[in-house]
């Protein structure tokens, strides 16, 4: 250290150009949120937040996004396992289909769901006649729409992790007497833990923010299908304050989850 307490030439400053460009990048993320914060009607906020438009939307969003994530776990992980471990014909096609919802505009996804599961849909018609279950314009419809767009995240992440996993560990576990289920439970899944968590978070986040497929397939009705994104969309044209409050809720919830993610799970993303 020099006499004035500085480290002088001993610590190298980061390259100026990189810092400048990086700061611009950071600004692109920060500025919109600042803009949102600037419009928040702070004094009215408690009242707006307590209104049933907001509480209904928040409740629906949380319930449907979590349900969608749960479904993704139950059917998505086995699918990922099949894709990573089984050698079957048509695997490239399956991989393409699974990735499709990531590439398609969500509205197209919603339309496809309608054509398949709607009242006059391919499967939907028989489904309704057999069970009386109708998905469009129902909360379950929202869950289905969310699952459709969000599950690919989990499948792709888990498949990648399984591929990169050294399968010899599973062989070692088997040689020690572990049944296939035990191997999965105690070796495979824990070893892909970070990727699994990252996949789950991405899946939930995507489901939470889903709009196009929901409004196309499940419709828009407060308390039944109007999730936070739909509520924001509608409120933007009628009640600006509510729209901003809803947006704020979404930002806060999402930030809480993402910031709460531990460092090591970020690495797996």
């Amino acid at each position, binding site marked *: 250290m020099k006499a004035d307490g500085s480290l002088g030439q001993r610590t190298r400053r980061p390259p100026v150009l990189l810092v400048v460009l990086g700061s611009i990048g950071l600004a692109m993320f920060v500025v919109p949120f600042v803009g949102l914060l600037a419009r928040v009607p702070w004094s009215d906020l408690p009242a707006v937040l307590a209104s049933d438009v907001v509480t209904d939307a928040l409740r629906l969003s949380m319930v449907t996004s979590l349900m969608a994530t749960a479904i993704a776990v139950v059917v998505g992980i086995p699918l990922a396992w099949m894709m990573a471990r089984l050698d079957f014909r048509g695997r490239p096609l399956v991989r393409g289909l699974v990735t499709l919802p990531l590439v398609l505009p969500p509205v197209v996804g919603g339309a496809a769901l309608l054509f398949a599961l709607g009242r006059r849909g391919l499967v939907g018609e028989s489904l309704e006649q057999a069970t009386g279950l109708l998905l469009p314009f129902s909360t379950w419809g929202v869950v289905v729409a969310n699952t459709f767009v969000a599950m690919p995240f989990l499948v792709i992440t888990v498949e990648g992790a399984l591929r990169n996993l*050294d399968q*010899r*560990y599973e*062989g*070692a*576990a*088997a*040689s*020690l*007497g*572990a*049944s*296939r289920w*035990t191997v999965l439970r*105690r*070796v495979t899944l*824990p*070893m892909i*833990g970070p990727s699994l968590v990252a996949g789950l978070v991405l899946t939930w986040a995507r489901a939470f923010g889903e709009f196009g497929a929901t409004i196309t397939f499940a419709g828009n009705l407060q308390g039944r299908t109007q999730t936070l994104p739909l509520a924001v969309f509608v409120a933007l044209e009628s009640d600006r304050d509510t729209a901003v409050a809803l947006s704020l809720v979404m930002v806060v919830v999402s930030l809480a989850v993402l910031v709460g993610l531990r460092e090591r799970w970020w690495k797996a993303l």
Partner: protein
Amino acid sequence: MEGALGPGLEADFGLRRGDSFQIDLSLSIPAGRTVALLGPNGAGKSTAVAAIAGLLPIESGRIGLAGITLDHPSADVLIPAEARRIGVVFQDYLLFPHMTVMENVAFGLRSRGVNRNEAMERAGGWLERLDLTGLERRKPPQLSGGQAQRVALARALVIDPDLLLLDEPLAALDVTTRVELRRVLGRHLADFPGPRLVITHDPTEAFLLADEIHIIENGVVTQSGSPDEIRLRPRTPYAADLAGSNLLFGRASHGQVDVGLHLLHVAEHEVEGEVLLTIRPSSISLHRTPPEGSPRNAWETTIAVMERLGERTRIRTGPPLPLTVEVTSEATGALALGVGEAVWLAIKATEIGVEPQGGYTRSV
């Protein structure tokens, strides 16, 4: 086949590895004996391990252990890996990185339904026996190479297997640790009552740990026998290569080692007592006249056996201390060497490898 302590491994099988070559192996290991499968990398050793462990099915033949058929394609019998009672120590150990040492060692027991407390007790016992107390809570990435190897060994032994199968158990260790752990391994192998199969590419390991060695090249066993047989009568160039390494036991004192038949000068002055010497055949030089210069070890001897292997020639010298020497065939021509001829032999003190003997009880 029943050994004194119980039936052993009967393996006589074939399988194709990828689309390169066919592996055909016939091993019969009774309880209480250690067999080494020795061969260069790519010889098919790991495939053989996988087949015996149950991670790969064989295509022909039969594998039986302790009287039970494990794999017999023509009889449509295939017992999966998890049902075979084989303790495997894998190359790279494959300790589960997300589990503690204790959990790793207890894993086999827990998987077989043993309750937690009993499993931890039995695992703890083995950790103690392998000098690993205090490390129970550590995770594999925090272990040294030697510690990891011993944990892997404990993990395999705790399940009380019918066969102990070790795949290159020392390969992942650095030289100094390897020497030390070779001894530890030797001890535990000797203590294990069942049959033991060691897979390795290191001839010293095979020669020191095994009762019987099978040399495998390109999927086929080219020679089997006791270490002495292989050393004295190698049947292939590879075997000869392995055999060629001169291994001698002796007693060291102040830089001189008495190997019984002769006194050798070594560069290692610190090691005292019972030692093991290794001299590579290619580091021994032959001369027609007494050599000049620095070699501390030089004596006159005769050529007992001479074998030309292409560009190299292997020579076995006679008294006072028979050694295997390797020279270029060109040199033999230049020196006009032939069986019965007298030659001078020289070895630099620095070319003799010295290590403490402790743990090896066999004569070499």
